[in-house]
């Protein structure tokens, strides 16, 4: 990470830079005075490289006079060409490596608009889900930022201007999140195979931990970026956890396990937890350990006696204390799990219902 940064610890792309549309309209003289002054300051005093490049690409030079012919040309551009950077044919399938902008009016899975954003975000697709650009398809994306000064090995990655956006960008690997594919707006092109390989490698490494100790400025920026990108995954979370009813559908993969005569203790690779509900100091989980599926409640305070009442398929479950703040009950074995299970929990004065589907390898997803 570079030691000196010229920018504040906030997302430059959102708080300081301007959208292509704003720059285009600025070029036509169509903005209010205060906004025009801000853009003028940004282009000529702050000399933002990204916005200056973008402005030049729009076919306007800030200081030149405006002829009516040019003005008409720009208005035409504004009306007919949303994207001013290189145009690509929209692909049939959403796939890894594609850069898209997000819609400014994200919708939930039911198609209702849930927010109105001031600006679209570019994102890089790292998992295309079923490939359809529909609201029921959950994909995974990495937000793309222009704050290239905040490169921290293991957390973020800068790719040069040979990308579809045509200026250097910072991939916020730490900020990867799920998104409803229907909330993608405009396709901007694919990153190169070489860059994609770097990105995927960095993404893998991210799980293994940061390589550089970040400074406070970076942490403040990171927090801000996470906050700013929350709108991307909000509809997904909403789809998974309908807050009004606390009714959730969860799919749990069942890992195959060869029992043989194995009586040894579990290695960590044979332990897979699935969190159903988590609050401060409490979590409700299903954990697969070797071939056993356990319902587990973990509490930080070992003296906590008021455990929630749990019903599995309408039958009360007796939880046993396991130690280390954990209480558990056996749900079943990998080769005999019911495909569907309904789990109810009374917790914090609320009634939670989980529709759990245990998916064995090869079953239809």
């Amino acid at each position, binding site marked *: 990470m570079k030691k000196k940064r010229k920018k504040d610890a906030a997302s430059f792309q959102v708080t300081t830079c301007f959208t292509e549309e704003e720059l285009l309209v600025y070029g036509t003289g169509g903005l209010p005075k205060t906004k025009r002054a801000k853009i003028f300051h940004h282009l000529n005093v702050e000399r933002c490289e990204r916005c200056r490049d973008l402005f030049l690409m729009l076919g306007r030079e800030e200081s030149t006079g405006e002829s009516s012919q040019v003005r008409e040309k720009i208005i035409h551009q504004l009306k007919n060409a949303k994207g001013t950077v290189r145009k690509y044919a929209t692909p049939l399938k959403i796939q890894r490596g594609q850069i898209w902008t997000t819609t400014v009016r994200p919708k939930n899975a039911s198609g209702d608009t849930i927010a109105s954003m001031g600006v679209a975000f570019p994102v890089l697709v790292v998992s295309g889900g079923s490939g359809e650009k529909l609201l029921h398809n959950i994909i995974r994306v990495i937000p793309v930022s222009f704050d290239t000064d905040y490169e921290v090995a293991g957390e973020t990655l800068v790719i040069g201007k040979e990308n579809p956006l045509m200026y250097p960008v910072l991939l916020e690997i730490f900020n990867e999140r799920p998104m409803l594919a229907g909330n993608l707006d405009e396709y901007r092109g694919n990153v190169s195979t070489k860059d994609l390989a770097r990105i995927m490698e960095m993404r893998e490494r991210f799980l293994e931990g940061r390589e550089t100790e970040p400074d406070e400025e970076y942490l403040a920026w990171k927090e801000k970026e996470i906050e700013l990108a929350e709108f991307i995954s909000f509809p997904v979370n909403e789809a998974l956890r309908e807050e009004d009813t606390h009714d959730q559908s969860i799919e749990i993969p069942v890992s195959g396990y060869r029992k043989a005569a194995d009586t040894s203790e579990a290695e960590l690779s044979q332990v897979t937890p699935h969190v159903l509900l988590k609050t401060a100091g409490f979590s409700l*989980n299903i954990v697969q350990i070797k071939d056993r599926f356990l319902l587990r409640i973990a509490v930080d305070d070992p003296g906590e006696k008021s455990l929630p009442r749990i019903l599995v398929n309408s039958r009360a479950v007796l939880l046993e204390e396991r130690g280390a703040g954990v209480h558990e009950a056996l749900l079943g074995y990998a080769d005999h799990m019911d495909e569907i299970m309904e789990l109810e929990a009374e917790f914090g004065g609320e009634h939670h219902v989980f529709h759990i589907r245990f998916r064995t390898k090869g079953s239809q997803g």
Partner: protein
Amino acid sequence: MIDPFPKIKSLEREGNFNGVIQAVVENYGDLGPVRPELLARIVHYLDHFRAFISPKSIAAIGCLPPADLQYAGLTDIPDAGSGERPAQSIGRIAFPAVTSGGLVREIRVVEEEGANMLSARLQALDHAGAAVYRVLKNYLGRCCCWTPGRFSFHVLDPYGKDDPAVEGSSLLLPLAIALYSLVTRIPVPADLSATAALGRDGKVAPVANIREKLAILNRERFFIKRVLVSAKQEMPGNMSGCRVIRVHSLDDALSITFQRPPDAACFSGDLDIDAEIRSLSDQYNRYLIDTCIENADELIRFLELKKSRTEREKTVPALFTCYWKKGSCHCHKGEVRETNGSLKKAVSLYRKYPGLVRGDDYFDARVSYAVLLKDIFRYGEAENIHKQLIEEMEQSRSLDHIKGKNLSTLSQLYLAMHRFGEAEQYQRRAMKLIRREELCRNYGYLAQIHTRSGALRK
């Protein structure tokens, strides 16, 4: 919030026990659902891998909630540093590696005749062994052949399983140290590791990811206090932990590692010529070309001194094989001048000592040479040799099968030269001489000729 459990799982898979303990303690609050299993694993590490658990990890365990420590039976952990330390060991050394993450593995070199090693490992062993035997030869001052076929090595994780994912040039120096330890029977000190590339000439070269490698050694093998690296290795600043020792050559590395010189009695004085000649063929067949050339040179020097009248019967055929193999190896490397020099010597031995070198071996050698020449597109020279051999074989009343082989390879040469008529003619002649059980192969060659010449109906 990122789930820390996948990273912890990956640390355990890699055998990074200190990494697991420290990550568990650091993220304990987020690991609620799997705490019992994590505590059980910590107990397991302390029971089975106590020597690897660092004082830092022991101190970290002490920071876990007392109730949980009590539940896991971890209230009475012996003082940090009081555990058993790994002993010095022969043929074994720990070294750091970086694959998807950092890890420490142990190279274990063993004497294992005819081991079925992966090609990359065989090449690495051959490379390191050539450098080790260069040092030994200088020290012993006598003929000393490196025989890769006698040895094998394993890259073991802490569970004792071979880890095929670990490869690369940085294991060459530790491999050479472990091999030297095995052949000299001097143990490698437990507080020493190495990470550097190594040339056959014994020069030590830098490696990538040195920061990660030193950091992983520091965390996972706290008792390693010295690490050998190349003198040219660029080092990141502020590296704490073990002492980095820079070396220029394997010779430097061995004198730092081993406090005493090897016992010359470990090496038998006389060479077993028959065994060495068999090894030479084995090296040639396994494509260990440089070792084959170096050993052939070594044996030639040794045998030329012993070529007295009394020992001729044994030394001349051995010399013939050495020159023949050496010439063939040079040919594989495209070194035609050296090839010619060696093969001429082989031919002159055959002619000078009639009866000592078997005619079939001689013809076989020359046919093989002609094939090699064809493979490097020296068609004219290859054709001349085949033609000469036809005459020589007639004169020496060679076996039909040998004659057939020569004609068949000449046919294949013509096929390569697009002289399809002659190719067919010689293949048909060969098929009349070749052993019945090998004829199917010649039918295949004939079919190739017809296909290439467009005579598909044939």
